[in-house]
């Protein structure tokens, strides 16, 4: 039997207690077709981009001022040679700072308003009114409210991370509370309300909270450029905005790509970390 993909292999072991793990090279061999296709799709994407720039495509969308992939790569090389670490460090710290404070507060308040009607009545309305305000709209107030630009920037990445985490946590808790069976199981074994919350409600809310954290991490990166417009001399977002102001186009696209890559990578890390808290789940997609 030659396995054609990972799913059929995992299906084979579905009911067995000891889970078989595939070796890395087996995974690569099994997935090599997919990897080839994905590689081809990326190459095609860059070729199309280069081509559109080369013919100065200009119909509705104007490619005349868009830097070509080669120019972007050159800008990247220049950026790397020119002390990039201060920019990375500044941005990463702002995102992590906003994300961590957003997670702590988002999960905490989410657990509270998800499980208590009184707290929901008191807290949910003002939070809901503030939620639709985009990060950009916060800039003037952030400048006025905080002692320095740096804390204002932390605040804006915090706003980005906080809301998705809050809402996901709240909804996840409400969903867990609707699972009467698990609550009854806990009650009949003698759990009091606190133990029910700790052992039943919180673990069963983890998948929802995890989704909120992944989205929150992405949002913190969205808001980074906005945050770094406020002030400062360092940061990937600042670099992007500065390049636009001084009409230097290739670094703009480079900044965008870097933010995209780092955002995707950090979301992936968050996903992996939160998954490690939920070892009981077996996820089988495609109806297997």
């Amino acid at each position, binding site marked *: 039997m030659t396995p054609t993909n990972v799913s059929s292999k995992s299906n084979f072991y579905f*009911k067995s207690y000891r889970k078989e793990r595939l070796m890395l090279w087996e995974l690569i061999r099994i997935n090599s077709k997919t990897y080839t296709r994905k590689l081809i799709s990326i190459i095609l994407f860059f070729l199309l981009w280069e081509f559109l720039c080369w013919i100065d495509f200009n119909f509705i969308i104007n490619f005349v001022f868009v830097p070509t992939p080669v120019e972007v790569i050159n800008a990247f090389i220049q950026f790397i040679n020119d002390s990039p670490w201060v920019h990375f460090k500044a941005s990463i710290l702002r995102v992590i700072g906003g994300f961590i404070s957003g997670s702590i507060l988002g999960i905490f308040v989410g657990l509270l308003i998800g499980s208590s009607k009184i707290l929901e009545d008191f807290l949910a309305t003002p939070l809901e009114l503030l939620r639709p305000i985009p990060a950009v709209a916060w800039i003037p107030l952030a400048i006025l409210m905080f002692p320095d630009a740096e804390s204002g920037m932390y605040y804006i990445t915090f706003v980005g991370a906080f809301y998705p985490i809050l809402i996901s946590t709240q909804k996840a808790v409400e969903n867990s509370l609707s699972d009467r*069976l698990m609550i*009854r*199981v806990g009650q*009949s*074994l003698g759990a009091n309300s606190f133990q029910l919350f700790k052992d039943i409600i919180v673990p069963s809310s983890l998948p929802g909270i995890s989704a909120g954290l992944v989205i929150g991490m992405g949002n913190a990166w969205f808001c980074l450029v906005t945050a770094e417009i406020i002030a400062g001399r360092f940061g990937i977002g600042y670099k992007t905005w500065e390049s636009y102001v001084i009409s230097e186009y290739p670094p703009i696209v480079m900044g965008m790509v870097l933010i995209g890559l780092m955002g995707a990578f950090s979301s992936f890390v968050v996903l992996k970390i939160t998954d490690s808290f939920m070892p*009981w*789940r077996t996820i089988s997609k495609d109806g297997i």
Partner: protein
Amino acid sequence: MIKKSKIEENYVLVDNVIKTFNTNNKKKIILSNVNFQISKGEFTCILGPSGCGKSTLLDLLAGFTKPDEGLISVSDEVVRKPGPERGFVFQKNSLIPWQTLEQNVGYGLKLQKFNSKDIEAKVTKYLKLVGLEKYRKAYPNQLSGGMQQRGSIIRALITNPKIILMDEPFGAVDAQTRSLLQEMLLKIWREFETTVVFVTHDVDEAILLADRVIIMGVNPGHIREIIPINIPRPRSLDSSFLEEFQKVKIKILNLIKEETLKLMQ
């Protein structure tokens, strides 16, 4: 001594219980004037057509819901809320998904602040009892339905409850597994001398297991008849070929048929 035997006879007391539910601001009577007693160590099955309130009655015994009128007591204590002194076995998928089998089985003891060594020892003993010691580290979704139910039974049993309440625990497993589980349950019941109330819709199952079968009627839910089963123990699958078994079965089937017909009118 007279008093003690009285308690043992009225080990479980259901006294004039009335239960209503509110649907669309209209009170609907689910159970009306339910009365019965169960003595200590007795195995009682509750049978009845669907919608007769048998699960509601079990929820009341567990304390998940409260009666509108009347009183329920187990071992001279009025039932007010659910607790480990009344073990409950649910129909299916009731092992806590994020706990391994051993954590599930030991959870009740952990809540009672037993130390981890005692829990470990007790869990091992109970897992062996139902042949699951190999799977102690498995999560529920890695276990078959029958294994999950076995885990669920010992989880309810491990806190040494005064009574075990079972809500169609074998309804969702296949027929072969079911008869094995039934024999296993009888073995455990004999060994632990527990009192069991077992809700089912399977007549054969009820006759095989029970000392007495409570037949419930409909419109509203009430006790139609309580039938003692005098088939000698130990019983096994072979017991179903006895004449006594067949006689009781026909009697029960007729009673349930009458009640089911009432529902259709």
